[in-house]
């Protein structure tokens, strides 16, 4: 449960990057972006972020049933906090 706030912070961190890059992209594409294109681009940004986050997110959850131990999960959390400066 201690890792839950880290999941939230990591999500927010990635979402900020996603939104900033998406806006840059849409502004480069000019006005009058076809709806289909806009949807495809949004899905692209979400797809990359979600697939990249999947591993770390999974390793922040420790269900006790598998080989992932609590201490390993906490080490993952500490490393993510450091690497993404999530504590500040």
């Amino acid at each position, binding site marked *: *449960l201690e890792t*839950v*706030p880290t*999941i*939230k912070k990591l*999500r*927010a961190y990635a979402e900020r990057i996603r939104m900033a890059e998406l806006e840059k992209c849409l502004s480069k594409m000019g006005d009058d972006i076809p709806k289909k294109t806009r949807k495809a681009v949004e*899905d692209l940004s979400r*797809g990359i972020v*979600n*697939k990249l*986050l*999947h591993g770390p*997110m*999974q390793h922040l*959850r420790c269900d006790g049933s598998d080989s992932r131990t609590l201490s390993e999960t906490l080490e993952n959390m500490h490393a993510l906090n450091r690497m993404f400066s999530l504590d500040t």
Partner: protein
Amino acid sequence: PKKHELISRLKTGKNFLRNQELEKAFMEFKTALELAQNLKDPTEEKKAARGLGASLQRQGKYREAIKYHSMVLAISQREGEDSGNTEAYGAIADCYTELGDLERAGKFYDKYISRLETD
């Protein structure tokens, strides 16, 4: 014409949200939700519900936000089409985290995480 107003409400709602004008955003999404319900347009209905959830969440009204994010899940269930669910699970979990209910937050993050690799 109604559809046109719906799209435009969603758009201005999004802009208000971006500029942190959260109450104005809420009002736009609220109108959009009613329009989408009248038009029986589930895709736009979800967008309106998500917008309402986001507006409330950023105002710190987490319990109400959960209500609207959950509406996305309900629409998905009703329509048998689960787009937007990943984000809804994540947002609900974020709200429970803010409310200090880490137990429940964890359960919703688990659903969120299990969907991260799907499209």
